[in-house]
């Protein structure tokens, strides 16, 4: 294996120094190392995404494990958790192992499959959670994401059942009866646009129920893509009571608001929907306070025809892997410690990915990314690495450029481009 000397890099904003990588690990000085000039760059532990849709199997026209892995690497990620709503659904050991194997073959990031909670995401019957947990994929997080596990009894059973193998239920919090036909956040803008509203309470009610259930049965709960100020209050309350709950927020919910729907361009259609400026402010504060533990992309690639249509007929979702760090930088500024905590260490800990989110100390796995914080970039959909183009940031100038990413000591990205 080639050894690398990452020259003059600032580790999490510290004074520039040389960082050596050898045999997949951070090492002491190496004499014959290949030099990567990192003048002006900041090193972060490789980012970890707890919420990625890779679309394979089933919608390879929108994304594959390989193309999604490449987009992740270009975005500074070294590990992603692949959501289960594929076709077929990742509700058996066979499917999660297939995804896991495809990730290994691509070799660009560690792809950790998430298993479905219920068979076919139908919310009726538990999937074989234990079989997925003990499969080669070693599934630890289970989610019906895209659908809420709405039946309270089934949710209770799921939370209880996964305790046997230290699993987590990641809930897509959306009371389905309150969101029938919903198209966007329910409020002034939905009223003006005549689009059926997705009320904040539909999320908050499920989170409130689930934290109480998790407390009751002593289980771990993870809340996907928290989007409202009310949800933050419920989570704050639950955490104060000692409930074992973690929560994520997406980059787009930290930056964008429902006003964008005024164009009726479905590139801004996402589930949960973009909320108000007050919600955005509350989510930002919660991320800083730690009420929200992590940033997760909810990277949701879609084929062109699923977005170039009427708003109501478009599929919800946005690509996010390649813009997540720039968006977070624009929101939090250069708070490298905080960014490492929210985008690498904590998600790695929640997902149980022990080789990721480490401190880049000598002897730890060399999973890291190098960022040029002074660069500014105008987002061009055509320039994305992902197979899909549905970014809500087209034409937006964002700070920060991911220059290089290393997975276990091997570069997956150099000079901003994927190595393979």
């Amino acid at each position, binding site marked *: 294996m080639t050894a690398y000397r990452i020259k003059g890099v600032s580790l999490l904003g510290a004074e520039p120094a040389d960082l050596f990588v050898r045999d997949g690990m951070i090492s002491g000085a190496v004499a014959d190392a290949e030099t990567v000039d990192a003048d002006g760059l900041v090193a972060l532990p490789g980012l970890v995404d707890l919420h990625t849709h890779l679309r394979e199997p089933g919608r390879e026209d929108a994304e594959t494990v390989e193309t999604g892995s490449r987009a992740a690497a270009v975005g500074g990620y070294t590990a992603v958790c692949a959501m289960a709503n594929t076709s077929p659904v990742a509700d058996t050991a066979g499917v999660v192992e297939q995804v896991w194997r495809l990730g290994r073959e691509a070799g660009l990031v560690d792809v950790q499959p998430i298993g479905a909670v219920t068979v076919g995401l139908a919310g009726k019957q538990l999937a074989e959670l234990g079989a997925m947990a003990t499969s080669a994929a070693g599934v630890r997080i289970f989610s019906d994401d895209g659908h809420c596990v709405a039946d309270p009894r089934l949710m209770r059973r799921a939370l209880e059942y996964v305790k046997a193998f230290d699993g987590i239920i990641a809930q897509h919090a959306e009371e389905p009866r309150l969101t029938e036909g919903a198209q966007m956040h*329910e*409020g*002034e803008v939905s*009223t003006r*646009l*005549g689009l059926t509203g997705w009320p904040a309470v539909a999320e908050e009610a499920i989170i409130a129920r689930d934290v109480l259930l998790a407390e009751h049965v002593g289980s771990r709960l993870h809340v996907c893509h928290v989007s409202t100020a009310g949800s933050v209050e419920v989570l704050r309350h639950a955490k104060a009571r000692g409930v074992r709950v973690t929560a994520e927020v997406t980059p787009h919910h930290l930056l964008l608001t429902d006003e964008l729907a005024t164009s*009726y361009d479905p590139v801004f259609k996402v589930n949960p929907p973009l909320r108000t400026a007050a919600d955005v402010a509350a989510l930002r504060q919660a991320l800083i306070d730690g009420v929200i533990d992590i940033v997760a992309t909810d990277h949701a690639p879609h084929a062109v025809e699923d977005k170039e249509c009427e708003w109501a*007929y478009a599929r919800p979702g946005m690509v996010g892997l390649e813009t997540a760090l720039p968006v977070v930088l624009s929101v939090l500024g250069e708070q490298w410690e905080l960014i490492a905590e929210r985008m690498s260490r904590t998600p790695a800990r929640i997902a149980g990915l022990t080789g990721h989110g480490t401190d880049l100390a000598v002897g730890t796995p060399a999973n890291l990314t190098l960022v040029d914080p002074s660069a500014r970039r105008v987002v061009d959909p055509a320039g994305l690495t992902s197979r899909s183009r549905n970014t809500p940031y087209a034409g937006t100038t964002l700070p920060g450029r991911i220059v290089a990413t290393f997975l276990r000591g091997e570069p997956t990205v150099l000079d901003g481009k994927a190595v393979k």
Partner: protein
Amino acid sequence: MIKHLRSAADLDAATATLILDTAGEMATLAGREVKKLPTLRGRTVVNLFYEDSTRTRISFEAAAKRLSADVINFSAKGSSVSKGESLKDTALTLQAMGADAVVIRHPASGAPHRLASWVDGSVVNAGDGTHEHPTQALLDAYTMRSRLGRIDGLNVAIVGDVLHSRVARSNVLLLATLGAKVTLVGPPTLIPVDIVAAMAGGPKVSYDLDSVLPDADVVMMLRVQTERMQDSYFPSAREYSRRYGLDVPRMRKLPSHAIVMHPGPMNRGMEIAPEVADSSRSTIVEQVANGVSARMAVLYLLLGGKA
């Protein structure tokens, strides 16, 4: 001049007034032997209808034909599930056919906005989902002005299923632009959230029809679909009618000059009693006639000049 009419919010007071004045001139045509003008000769207007709406389609068709435009009716009814050709592909087809204007009726809110981004011609919204129906608001405003002589300062009550009504949204916006004071009346379940803040002019909201009637110059009754009661928006047609229907005793509470409007089609006996619909206060038949004049005015102002 504006290029598209997607929303009543596309119209400022001067433009809206110009359309109403123009509609007044167009209306004189109805009394003539020759009901045709050469104005839009050689121009092509496509009626692109994704919903059955014979009334609206023939109104636009008559308007375009009276201005001598070539009219192509393109009925593209189909549900989102069994969608055939996409709206974008249809738009490109119309573009290739040289459509100068596309009049679109569509079950999805915002479809005219999407269409406008794909065609060079003008787009006229003939009703999109639960969003807007701006030419209906124009013909309603025209009707109010011809009956009452003005719009500025009028008290207009819009009664019924505001939540699902594109007519209500367009009327709220246009009437605010023209200086009327709008009160939305209906059961709370059928009044959209945050409507006062959402809409320009800040309409008032009331849940009590009887208290609104004595000050109303105009009462506009909205169609209420009985299916709504399966969704628990109200308990029964009977209770709805009792609380929000306009019957003869209620009509007597109106000032003597007040008019009763309805965009049609009516549910007689549900939101409006037959005696009220057929009374001299009712403008329902005039509204239909005025629809052609208002749409002629819109087509002339969108297409009658340099593109």
